């Protein structure tokens, strides 16, 4: 499955990437599984996610939880809790 993964704010700085396109194994079908797969790739992802508490996610620009399914070619974003306003 082909996914575009985006990182924002502190998480983007810690990963050192704003965007990556990944081919993920077929077993990765939810946001939670994708996060585990990203972290299992090691540095810089493992440190970046480890250093960023309460990471939130969005799938195709809608807020998502760990159980949210991943459509093929989805845009999946990971970011810290929001601090606008």
């Amino acid at each position, binding site marked *: 499955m082909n996914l575009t993964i985006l990182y*924002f*704010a502190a998480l983007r700085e810690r990963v050192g990437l704003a965007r990556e396109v990944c081919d993920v194994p077929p077993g990765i079908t939810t946001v939670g599984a994708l996060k585990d797969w990203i972290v299992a790739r090691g540095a810089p992802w493992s440190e970046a996610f480890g250093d960023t508490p309460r990471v939130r996610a*969005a799938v195709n*620009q809608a807020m998502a939880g760990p159980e949210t399914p991943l459509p093929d070619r989805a845009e999946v*974003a990971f*970011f810290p809790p*929001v*601090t*606008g*306003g």
Partner: protein
Amino acid sequence: MVRIQREPFDLGAEIEQLRAGDPRVGAVACFIGIVRDLNDGERIATMSLEHYPGMTEKALEDIVTHARGRWDLYDVLVVHRVGELGPTDPIVLVAVTSAHRGNAFAACEFVMDYLKTEAPFWKKEVTPTGARWVDARVSDDKARARWEAESK
């Protein structure tokens, strides 16, 4: 209507346009958020605001749609700035028009409480001891939770 922009906004012009001379409008409530010079005990020199182009607009539109479903409103405007800002600069404007003040006040606060917790914006502050990302506040989650608990 929802707008993300780098430039400052003109409150008078925004409200004039929102009312559009509509004689049904009996109330306009608005909120302006402003950069302070002190946060968590540190001086703020400048601040930068990042957003998620596309999703931020969608999240704000959703919040406005919810507000319109909950109260009788004529119009809602949200303008949020991004980029570099300094103390005393306005960051956000929420303005609501309705027939009476009760709905306008409530909807304005509702939009701000949801914006704070649901709209993808992130602040990074520059202080004398370096740059730091602002942490989300528990009080903002609590402010939003009130609206979920309250049945209209």
